């Protein structure tokens, strides 16, 4: 009952039908947020990085806002099914979305989407970034990025790059690398990251752009050889690896994870979530919990997150067009 009346109030306020003074009860009502359990939709399968990030962030927000947050995994269609479910929910703050690079990418990749992520979502904040790593099988006779580029230019046909699916962040990291170096590397698509690592360790494929968290272990153990990271700067977990941008100026392909809500979610709710999210990203305990996922936490305002989504969408639109990646 109370949620409906609050939504109605907000609609009236938004339509300019109510005087400014009448807005005060809305702010007061927002104090009661959350009034029931909050559903945080993670648009991927349970057990993966997105799911784990969602669970930790949900737990933190629940504690801070005196409510209960639960994660619902709605996997499918490269995050589109879960995203659509979240954006179609009542915009009252009780359904949130774990947004990621996929949302910025899919806007271009899937021409027939029934939603427009930028238009239909309300940014809350960035959680952090997660770069990929260019890894190779140790049998490939190169050690550095310059050597790899030189080797690949001559031996492109001898290399196969294993990737976890068309349109995946890893695929886009590879596509951007291909566009900027002009090397036509043969890509080989898999269903997910696990099988790629398996075939890379087994030497069936020679290279991959893989998530930094999972590949760091194999690089440390010497099972795989790390060449460079896709982020703008070096990573603390792999300090010896250069950023690709050091050799290829302007190269950056970092996955982002953030929190979004359906369009029309009351501003006081967005502000409360943004504030507590950023407090969490400054909390050493939560940061330590997120570390094994490979995530580098990064706190920005809701407006800055909105701008980030727009610029990432634009950036990947260009990469997808120039690399000719299609999905239909």
């Amino acid at each position: 009952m109370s949620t409906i009346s609050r939504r109605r109030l907000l609609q009236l306020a938004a339509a300019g039908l109510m005087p400014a003074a009448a807005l005060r009860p809305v702010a007061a009502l927002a104090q009661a947020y959350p009034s029931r359990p909050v559903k945080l939709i993670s648009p991927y399968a349970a057990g993966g990085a997105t799911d784990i990030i969602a669970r930790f962030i949900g737990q933190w927000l629940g504690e801070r806002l005196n409510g209960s947050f639960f994660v619902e995994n709605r996997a499918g269609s490269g995050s589109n099914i879960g995203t659509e479910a979240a954006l179609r929910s009542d915009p009252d703050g009780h359904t949130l979305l774990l947004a990621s690079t996929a949302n910025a990418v899919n806007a271009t990749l899937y021409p027939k989407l029934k939603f427009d992520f930028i238009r239909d979502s309300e940014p809350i904040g960035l959680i952090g970034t997660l770069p990929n790593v260019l890894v190779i099988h140790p049998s490939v006779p190169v050690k550095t990025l310059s050597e790899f580029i030189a080797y690949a230019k001559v031996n492109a046909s001898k290399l196969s790059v294993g990737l976890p699916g068309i349109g995946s962040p890893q695929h886009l990291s590879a596509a951007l690398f291909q566009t900027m170096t002009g090397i036509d590397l043969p890509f080989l698509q898999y269903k997910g990251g696990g099988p790629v690592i398996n075939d890379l360790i087994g030497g069936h494929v020679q290279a991959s752009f893989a998530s930094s968290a999972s590949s760091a272990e194999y690089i440390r153990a010497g099972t795989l050889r790390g060449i460079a990271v896709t982020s703008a700067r070096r990573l603390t977990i792999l300090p010896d690896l250069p950023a690709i941008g050091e050799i290829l100026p302007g190269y950056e392909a970092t996955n982002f994870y953030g929190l979004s809500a359906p369009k029309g979610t009351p501003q006081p709710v967005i502000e409360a979530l943004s504030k507590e999210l950023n407090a969490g990203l400054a909390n050493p305990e939560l940061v330590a919990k997120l570390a094994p996922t490979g995530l580098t936490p990064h706190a920005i305002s809701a407006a800055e997150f909105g701008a980030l989504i727009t610029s990432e969408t634009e950036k990947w639109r260009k990469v997808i067009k120039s690399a000719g990646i299609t999905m239909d």
Partner: protein
Amino acid sequence: MELFANLGLGLETAITPVNLLYALVGVFLGTAIGVLPGLGPAATIAMLLPATFVMPPVTALIMLAGIFYGAQYGGSTTAILVNLPGETSSVVTALDGYQMARQGKAGRALATAALSSFFAGTVCTLLIALFAPPLAEIALQFGPAEYFSLMVLGLIASIVLAHGSILHALGMIVLGLLLGLIGTDVNSSTQRYTFGLPELSDGIGFVIVAMGMFGIGEIVANLENEATRDVTIKKVTGLFPTREDFRRMVAPTLRGTALGSILGILPGGGAALASFGAYALEKKVSRNRHEFGKGAIEGVAAPEAANNAGAQMSFIPMLTLGIPSNPVMALMIGAMIIQGIQPGPSVMTEQPALFWGVIASMWLGNLMLLVLNLPLIGIWVRMITIPYRYLYPMIVVFCAIGVYSLNNAHFDLYLMALFGVVGYVFKKLDCEPAPLLLGFILGPMMEEFLRRALLLSKGDPTVLVSRPISAAMLALAAVLLTLVLLPSFSRTREQAFQDD
């Protein structure tokens, strides 16, 4: 002697009261969700993941592992009692297990399943403790070409699953292959038969097809025939296997364990083949092959041993390399990350108590399952005496809950209902669903591996025969095809003449 030190450390870890308790909780939950049709270990573990936040890492993994292999035990229960396999592996158990139940031998079938599973579990715990790292190395030698040839072998072997017409079986396999093609093509991202529905873009889930065709389809068909409805179950004769039963289950259990152990270490889908392969093997080598499909105890013992061995061995790629071979292992990896442990090759050396504790708990868990399951048999067999007017609605409700729990999507429920209709029609047409399900599982994997092998060889098909393991398996498949098809065709011809 390092092995004893390691196993000692593992037992020491696994035998602490709190770890024993959670192992028990895990196997108990696993058995429960295994018995309930449709609810699988993946959905259960996903739901319980938050509960592991507060546990020590080894305790969390012990409990989650318990759920996984507990579900393998429980899954055979509904397959045997009501012909409703909830897992890929129990599709085969249903073939002869359900026939045994209809002859009043449900208790003996259930006990056989539990005993052969326990034997396989014990052997595999030892194998993992002794050889986990070298076995993982061997599995890495399996490239796309080897996997493809393995799948071909499995598919050919599956033709013997059918006990009716070979033509019907072939038709069902091909239909299964086609159903498996629905979804997004991995290499080109082209949508196949998705009719613009994003829900179909990742393909159809196995559980949806199995619940629809076996669960709903079977119920509809049974309801139609009022006369047979209440007399299908004969009087239950004896709950425990006879001496003769024991004699007959020894060799199949051994062969099933061996086959399951080999296939289970392959992360690219070997475990899915284990129970099918074991059944096919028994049907070829058993002295009682004429009883297969009519309630042969070998047809329960072999696939159940193979299935449990495969499940247990699938821990090897996960524990030694951090590579998940199925959705449950992916969740286990997630649980490790939540605990702050990065899965990978260093887990064994940096977390020895965790590694060996989980392995030791597997054997303890298997023992608990045996102790838990044998006395429960008396209760389970009473389940089939429940009047159909109560049992059928319950099954439908649990199927619906199970299917919904996969993706939280109601689309999947409509799909299950559709497959229910399809299953009913096929039952009327005398077409068995088991070959269809095998084609459905193997088809997409075969395609994926074949295309990957050819992409890697730059389109040169000789890669399939120039790699020795691959060539050996294709040769075996060719031999099997000859053996399987020739006598079967002549036999069906004979029968056709006799019927005239």
